[in-house]
């Protein structure tokens, strides 16, 4: 608290104000690894995958449908089928639970955002920003996806069996995006972590300004963006690709040997300007 007198400093401290040094801003919390906990968040709903329910979305807004999903989870339903979604926007968002969701139709913009755990299967198409900020779980789209598919993805597997639009995986921070067909321009733009697999062709400026992460392309790459460079496909890459693509029935008959690996050229790396550790938990 520069520029104040000692008296003012004392008064300020007595009032509860104090200077916080920029160094060593640690929050130390004790935690025992033996602490009992389940496999789900303590606040997660206890659901049974074998208990199934349906929601007919016809004529109902996204607020009603999203609320109804939560009510069904409260009742213990672990498998929920959405009928007639009618390409509505913002359906199935913010679910922090294990759950099976089956969507019989197509979704509009911002579908399945902020998911943390569920397994979602969509029989139709999806609009812009499907799976945005997803944390964990799986989401499989049987047909095409719009632009910014998997924007800011943080974890989990996001699969589009056909083609996805431009800026697929923009600002991806983790997780896996798999596109069975082609992707548009600027896919992997500002990617920071995670893996993207494009079984078909990639559009212009692939991996532009990517900071980290890996992009695998099975087809042609129109061109690479700034600081995206070709890497060596290792045995670990081949094993991972084979396992993952087989899991989603997208493994090409000729295998994965033809895939091109794209990584960051690391010319844009600037980790030194990161803030030091802000919080620490001591086990």
């Amino acid at each position, binding site marked *: 608290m520069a520029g104040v007198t000692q008296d003012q400093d004392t008064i300020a401290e007595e009032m509860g104000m104090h200077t916080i040094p920029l*160094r060593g801003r640690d*929050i130390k*919390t004790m*935690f025992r*690894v033996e*602490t*009992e*906990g*389940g*496999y*789900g*968040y*303590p*606040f997660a709903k206890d659901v049974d*995958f074998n208990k199934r329910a349906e929601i007919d979305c016809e004529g109902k807004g996204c607020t009603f449908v*999203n*609320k109804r999903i*939560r009510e069904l989870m409260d009742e213990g339903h672990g498998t929920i089928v959405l009928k007639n979604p009618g390409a509505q926007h913002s359906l199935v968002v*913010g679910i922090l639970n*294990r759950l*099976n969701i089956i969507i019989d139709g197509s979704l509009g913009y911002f579908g399945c955002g902020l998911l943390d*755990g569920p*397994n979602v299967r969509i029989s139709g198409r999806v609009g812009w920003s499907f799976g945005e900020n997803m*944390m*964990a*779980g*799986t989401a499989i789209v049987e047909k095409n996806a719009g632009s910014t598919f998997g924007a800011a993805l*943080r*974890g*989990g*597997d996001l699969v589009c069996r056909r083609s996805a639009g431009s800026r697929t995986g923009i600002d991806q921070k*983790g*997780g*896996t995006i798999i596109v069975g067909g082609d992707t548009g321009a600027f896919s992997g733009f500002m990617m920071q*972590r995670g893996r993207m697999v494009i079984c078909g062709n990639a559009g212009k400026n692939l991996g532009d300004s990517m900071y*980290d*992460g*890996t992009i695998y392309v099975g087809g042609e790459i129109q061109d690479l963006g700034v600081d995206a460079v070709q890497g060596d496909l290792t045995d*670990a*890459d081949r*094993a*991972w690709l084979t*396992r*993952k693509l087989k*899991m989603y029935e997208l493994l090409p008959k000729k295998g994965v040997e033809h895939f091109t690996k794209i*990584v960051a050229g*690391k010319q844009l*790396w600037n*980790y*030194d*300007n*990161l803030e*030091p*550790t*802000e*919080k*620490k*938990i*001591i*086990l």
Partner: protein
Amino acid sequence: MAGYKGSDIEDVDQFLKGDDLQSEREKTIGQHIGYRYDVNLVPDYDLITPFLQGYIEFMGWDDLNWLEDIHLGYDDGKPAVFDRNINGWIAIPDDMKLPDNQPERDMLAREILIKFQMSPDHPLVDLNKAYRSF
């Protein structure tokens, strides 16, 4: 194994040994910047632990899913795992013996992270009570 600024990590204990402050920024703040390990290392499923196998089955997944991105990092000269839910590092206890290779250390980190996140003592529990609106 690739490491910080693309350098090679030849010794798995490289970040645990000595005062290994490298960059100017690290010297200024007097501590390691934790993001120095290979974040692109894919998991070795032969090393999966029974606890993690149970977690995968409980969630209804076929593999480690989001945990594929979890690795044992090294923060401030100590082994630690990053918890995205609190935006902070969880330090591994001093008395916990670390395996001698990174893939096994990563499995250990994944198990510790899940146990921590699913614990009723996790800070997210209080945040959830205070702020969750849906």
